């Protein structure tokens, strides 16, 4: 029988990404191989291999320092002294930045993603442009623009309020997250079979009812794994803001090493610690992402 090609308004057009190089990053179908490349790569390694690699990476400097003047004991002692401060003041800020960024990026991204499937060609075009612009810009450049072009204080009702750098960092990082969430939403909506649109359409649902009652509820599950993947990527990107002076883990580590007279032996324990703590936080997320992805893949 003739399969009538049918266009659901707002959904027919393929996304136009002009640079083939960028295609690998396109989240057109959530859960597609490219989309979860990071999680997949990380999880495809047996847990023991990952842990062993880290153990080796972290332990060889220890062994090396054993022969130096400023011994491993000294460097580790320094790290031990600074550790509570680095975690409570540094890494906590990284987490705060990542959580707030994800929150803002998700809310804005969902709105932008829904605009991408709007029935209005103009709205769709605008949303598409915004999405592409922020998905295909280096995060650091976005951060610089936001940090340097935004005021550092505002006057509201005669009171001067300082805008802390880290809130601007949140805003700067939210932009690429928003754009990627927008693509996740668009991809998830497009992955719902057209039959769902047609069935609800022939039952006289309005477009809004179709979207909110039929289509989006089916999308949520599909969106969670790529969304978590982006959260892990975002968290690992938060040290970028140290280049702009935000006092998060990496900035504070550098300051701590300065306070310890900048012994070169300090570099590996301190940065190694930063790696370990990010790994400890992001690796479980990656594992969970892939597990959820598998579970949902079976059900859908």
């Amino acid at each position, binding site marked *: *029988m*003739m*399969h*009538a090609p049918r266009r659901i308004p707002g959904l027919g057009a393929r996304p136009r990404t002009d640079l083939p190089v960028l295609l690998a990053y396109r989240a057109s179908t959530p859960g597609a191989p490219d989309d979860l490349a990071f999680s997949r790569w990380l999880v495809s390694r047996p847990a023991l291999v990952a842990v062993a690699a880290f153990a080796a990476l972290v332990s060889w400097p220890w062994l090396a320092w054993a022969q130096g003047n400023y011994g491993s004991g000294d460097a580790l002692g320094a790290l031990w002294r600074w550790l509570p401060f680095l975690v409570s003041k540094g890494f906590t800020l990284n987490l705060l930045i990542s959580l707030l960024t994800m929150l803002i990026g998700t809310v804005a991204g969902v709105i932008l993603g829904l605009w991408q499937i709007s029935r209005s060609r103009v709205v769709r075009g605008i949303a598409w442009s915004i999405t592409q612009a922020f998905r295909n810009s280096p995060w650091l450049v976005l951060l610089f623009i936001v940090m340097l072009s935004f005021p550092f204080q505002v006057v509201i009702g005669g009171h001067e309020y300082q805008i802390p750098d880290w809130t601007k960092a949140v805003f700067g990082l939210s932009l690429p997250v928003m754009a990627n969430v927008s693509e996740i939403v668009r991809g998830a909506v497009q992955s719902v*079979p057209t039959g*769902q649109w047609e*069935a609800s*359409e022939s039952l*006289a649902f309005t477009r809004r*009812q179709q979207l909110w009652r039929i289509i989006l509820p089916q999308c949520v599950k599909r969106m969670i794994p790529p969304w978590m993947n982006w959260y892990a990527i975002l968290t690992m990107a938060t040290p970028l803001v140290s280049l702009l002076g935000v006092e998060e883990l990496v900035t504070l580590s550098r300051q701590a090493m300065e306070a310890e007279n900048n012994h070169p032996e300090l570099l590996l324990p301190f940065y190694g610690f930063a790696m370990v703590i990010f790994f400890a936080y992001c690796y479980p997320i990656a594992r969970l992402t892939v597990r959820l992805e598998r579970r949902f893949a079976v059900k859908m």
Partner: protein
Amino acid sequence: MSDRNWDPSQPIISVRDVHKSFGSLEVLRGVSFDVAKGEVICVIGPSGSGKSTLIRCINGLNDINSGSITVEGQEVHDPKLDKLALRRKIGMVFQQYNLFPHKTALENVMMAPILVLKEPKDEVRERARALLAKVRLQDKEDSYPGELSGGQQQRVAIARSLAMRPNVMLFDEVTAALDPETVKEVLVTIKDLAQEGITCILVTHEMGFAREIADHIYFTDLGVIVEHGPPSTFFAEAKDPRTREFLSQIL
């Protein structure tokens, strides 16, 4: 629900010289027919002859290039027409069932009357239960579509359409995706409806069934109606060679 200007002695559906193309592919090339209220129409024909497209044009799922389709006197492809009002009168059942996978069977049936017709929930629930009983699925109310067989899903889909109390039902090859054993349970359900006097248009490959329930059979090929007639004469006395060839392959 009936239109003011339409009286039931006129055709409930009237299709006039409908043309429809997808790009350069002409799918309907001047199709005309009438359906009287309460009639059961079967459309048969080889794959790609435009059968599905034809009935999808009747509730506006596909638009047409030229011609006219009226339902109860209302022009379906009039841009000013309230499509939602039209679709409340026309139920449609699909080959792939298209049940909402995140809702139970009962919820699938209840959704449209509550959301679209704004009817009170308790009343709708009662009616939905009765409809599921009617399609012999009263014990599957709380099952999700994924837990039902193809035939059961299709019967839920029929109940879902009926919950809107349509005046016309469109069936688009509703048994084509089913196992031979489950085809029968769906056909029995449709037969019940036809006997209740709901106007039905079926696109089907089930010739025996068409012969049994149809008041009138249309044979389409290459986008036109080649031949039509009541089943008694259609199957016995097909004149056109294309019809005869098709029937000889199928029967």
